[in-house]
């Protein structure tokens, strides 16, 4: 009955675990086509800055080498980066819920490359968010700080948000639902308040000690550090590194549990 057979040795394995420009391009395009993602990550933080950061009763008071507006601008850029990176990472929740992750496991794509692509997309979205807030801030003109502070703060806010890319992945694997960001949005708003992004928290108060243990604290402090100069506190760096380790560990743990049914 069989007239032909297939020789498996004639088949090739794709290079780089399946990583390629076509898929990365499609992933970036998907992200920008998602209206909710664009509103939450690109428009909301800029809008918040305009609402909070430009109030004339305090905006021009001196804060470090800049003014209060600059302080709030950096905070909102960090908040935008956090939202964007989390949304990017949490895309895996939707993809798991839809069975797309399972579909991908029937292709040569390596799971490591999949996570890498999700991380690139999350960081790209984070970068866009930081740029959006800063452009709005620059055009608005209320925020003043030296250019190098402006640039370093933006880069730290963006790079530090990698912690939340990992957080998004972890939550994406933990909560397989199509609308995981509806849960994570309020959680992040709460964490931002605790981490000192909405209003300054006295670091010597009880609230200050609690704040120092929450995941946004390290990022918030480090992003605003260029405004003040000097040496960064070890606790800021420790906070960032420990939370990064917790979220990466959590994501890796959930992923490894995720064997039979993706």
């Amino acid at each position: 009955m069989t007239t032909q057979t297939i020789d498996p040795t004639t088949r090739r394995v794709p290079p780089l675990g399946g990583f390629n420009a076509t898929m990365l391009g499609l992933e970036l395009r998907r992200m920008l086509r998602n209206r909710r993602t664009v509103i939450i990550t690109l428009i909301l933080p800029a809008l918040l800055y305009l609402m909070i950061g430009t109030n004339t009763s305090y905006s021009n008071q001196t804060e470090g080498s800049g003014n209060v507006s600059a302080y709030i601008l950096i905070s909102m850029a960090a908040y935008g980066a956090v939202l964007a990176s989390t949304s990017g990472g949490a895309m895996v929740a939707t993809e798991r819920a839809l069975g797309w992750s399972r579909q991908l496991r029937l292709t040569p794509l390596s799971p490591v490359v999949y996570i890498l692509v999700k991380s690139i997309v999350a960081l790209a979205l984070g970068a866009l968010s930081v740029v959006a807030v800063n452009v709005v801030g620059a055009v608005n003109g209320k925020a003043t700080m030296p250019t190098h502070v402006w640039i370093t703060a933006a880069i730290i806010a963006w790079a530090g948000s990698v912690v939340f890319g990992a957080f998004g992945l972890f939550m994406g694997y933990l909560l397989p639902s199509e609308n995981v960001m509806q849960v994570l949005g309020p959680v992040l708003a709460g964490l931002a308040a605790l981490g000192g992004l909405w209003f300054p928290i006295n670091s010597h108060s009880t609230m200050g000690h609690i704040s120092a243990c929450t995941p946004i604290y390290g990022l918030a402090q480090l992003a605003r550090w260029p405004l003040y100069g000097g040496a960064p506190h070890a606790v800021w760096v420790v906070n960032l590194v420990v939370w990064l380790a917790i979220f990466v560990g959590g994501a890796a743990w959930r992923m490894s549990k995720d064997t039979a049914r993706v």
Partner: protein
Amino acid sequence: MTQTSLSGTSGSSAGAVPAVRISGVTKDFGSVHAVRGIDLTLDQGEIVAFLGPNGAGKTTTIDMVLGLSHPTSGSVEVLGLPPRHAIARGLVSAVMQTGGLLKDLTVRETVQYTASLFAGATPVDEVLRTAGIESIADRKVGKCSGGEQQRLRFAMALLSDPALLLLDEPTTGMDVEGRRAFWSAIRADAEKGRTVLFATHYLEEADQYADRIVLISHGRIVADGTGSQIKALAAGRTIRATLPDADADVLSALAGVENVDVRGDAVYIHAKDTDEVARYLLTQTAAHDLEITARGLEDAFLSLTGDDHDITPTDSEGASA
């Protein structure tokens, strides 16, 4: 439960590596034994139906062939390779009944995305044309009908020209005409060496389209043969008689007897010509209390699978396995 072995089903085509070789595989989920020891070899170019009630172990076995999970014991090889290696070479594809698609990509983007992951995939436009989804290429997947999405899934599965294709309830929701066209396409590909393993709980479909039916129940293979061999199990009638110390070997040797089952003082004899067996029992042995019952196709499967439900002889509603 014992395996009903039917002759001449696993002869290997000379020289070619088998499409699937499952040896002594078990799979436990905690204290649940989903697969209790399966040996199965599929040759290249075979179309095989994997038939069994829900929860029989079909999906668990298929997941192991796909490398999505690992056997608790035993080994699985796909074209002589570990399953993940076969998948990395694009040798294996699977089409599920639902899911597996991103709603926010267009049909073309979905095919492009999948194609980009394989070394040497068929060109995207050609695949869209063959699958008959060229006209909806720029439509968002979320806006496609169920049938269109199913055609897209097939297009994706065929991109890498797989040597082994696994299908889960492939023709659910298709009309008679669609079903016929589908199977003639599958048949044409099988002639080029592609092996097709499809899970189903429709006896009729398994019988009509598969070269071979593997019947699985409670994590074991209970029958393996061609459709007609499987159906032969259902032919004839069963005699039940009370016969202490029945000699199963002697009874099995009677003309037309296919199966003898001794349970305590009761003996169950399945035979084509039960009149002859009854005559023998009543004249040559101490047998009494004879009962003769006819067995339908469905009953044959029920007795093989040891279940009272879940197997449907013809199309009817049923959950996917």
